């Protein structure tokens, strides 16, 4: 069980917008939870697309190492936009991707919808869902088949602070029960520190790795842990947003 992702000198550009990823190299060990933080439009979603094989890198490669049959069966993603099929109900959207061989489909879908708090809306069409509800449906779909590699692109960007914390807790619970390789893109540094073992800080486009912060604390974590707070300062420094006067202790 488990899949290790190895990025080797991955570069990717798009015609008309120049290089997006430049010589990106990192190893995501099997069963680890990694967060990607970086300025907007630096290439985070592009990186996930490369992992999925929706785009091919211009140079370098992404290797999957593990007993899975290559990337074919191991990845699941919650895209940055929910991408629900408008003509399927929430229930059927999750059910569509569910592996038919996995036994009790109905029970599984119900459990997933309960998990993300959408049980009441199982028969609703996506057009009546709010942004955050759609995002949660998309998360339920990503979790449906218990993937070896879980890719999450800003999965909680559209939900309120409290729901977000509950979903983070749920995600950690799922992860602890079955530690799959997880790569989460987020703009929320607290979220990255609360959930992941490694936070990869990316630069502006073309994205390269500025810093890799290892978070050693075990799960479940304490949101008020002061060690996490010091790491937050380090990540912010990596992102280049900590003003000098702030570092001097004057505050803003």
């Amino acid at each position, binding site marked *: 069980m488990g899949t290790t992702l190895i990025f080797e000198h991955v570069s990717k550009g798009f015609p008309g917008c120049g290089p997006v990823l430049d010589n990106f190299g990192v190893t995501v060990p099997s069963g680890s939870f990694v967060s990607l933080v970086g300025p907007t439009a630096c290439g985070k979603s592009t990186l996930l697309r490369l992992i999925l094989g929706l785009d091919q890198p211009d140079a370098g490669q992404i290797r999957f190492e593990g007993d899975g049959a290559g990337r074919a069966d191991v990845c699941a993603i919650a895209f940055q936009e929910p991408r629900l099929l*408008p003509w399927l109900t929430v229930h059927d959207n999750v059910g*569509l991707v569910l592996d038919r061989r996995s036994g009790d489909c109905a029970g599984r879908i119900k459990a997933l919808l309960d998990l993300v708090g959408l049980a009441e809306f199982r028969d*609703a069409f996506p057009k*009546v869902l709010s942004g955050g509800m759609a995002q949660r449906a998309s998360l339920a779909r990503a979790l449906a088949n218990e993937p070896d590699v879980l890719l999450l692109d800003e999965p909680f960007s559209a939900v309120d602070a409290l729901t977000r914390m509950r979903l983070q807790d749920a995600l950690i619970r799922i992860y602890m029960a079955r530690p799959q390789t997880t790569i989460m893109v987020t703009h929320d540094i607290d979220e990255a520190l609360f959930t992941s073992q490694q936070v990869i800080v990316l630069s502006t486009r073309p994205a390269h790795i500025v810093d890799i912060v290892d978070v050693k604390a075990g799960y479940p974590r304490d949101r008020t842990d002061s060690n996490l707070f010091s790491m937050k300062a380090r990540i912010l420094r990596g992102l280049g947003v900590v003003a000098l006067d702030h570092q001097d202790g004057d505050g803003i």
Partner: protein
Amino acid sequence: MATRQVIVAAATVESQKVNRRRRQSKSPLMGLLLPAILLLLWWLGAVTGVLDVAFFSTPSAVLRTLGNLIFSGALIFDFWSSLQRILTGAAIGFGAGLVLGGITGYVRQVERVLDPTIQALRAVPAIAWIPFLILTLGIDNAPKIALIAIAIFFITYVNTFSGVRSVDQKLIELAQAYRLSRSLVLRHVIMPAALPQIFVGLRLAAAIGWIAAVFSEILVGNNGLGELLNDGRSQGRPDQTIALMIVLALAGKCSDNLIRLLERHSTPWRATFEGV
């Protein structure tokens, strides 16, 4: 939180109901307003002599003729002959258009081979097929059905093709990312996405079906509404031609309504602008 969600759901249902009620209660009456005005003008024109009765007939004469045609059974018989042709031709043309449009839309390689020919044939006006069809199929039912099928085929083909091509690339990517099987992609991604455009094609097809049927019947008629229209002309009876035009208007409107009803029922998920 759970209770709040229930209330929200209930409110949505309620507002949908209100919307529907508003649509249902207002529109039919509003829609009858213009025909009523035209009828009134026609009647006024006829009684005051502004409209020549020899050409325009009168509402009462038309109504009487309509009654006679119905009770003699002629209208029923001819209506049924026309309808049968349209349904047969539509089944063939729509089926073929759906299959070919779907395949060419889905497989680029097939598009390269088939589409240029189909587009070229589409440029031939449907009417231009008639002499050829009469020569090859005679003057009975076959050429009429063929004409209807041809006209409907091209409309269905074009709309199905563009329906398939209008599928959101992001949803195709989603299917790729989740390794959905081809049959799942076809059934649950491409077909539903193409459905609205296919319905546009179906509505156009129904209209063109009636046109093609009546046209071919006027040209070579043994029976059908077109033949009745011809009778009215040759006997110099405007009341009969007008009565049949009304029948055609009603039939066309009914078939269109039927398709729209079907469309609403099969695409309840649509979240598009419905007009203010």
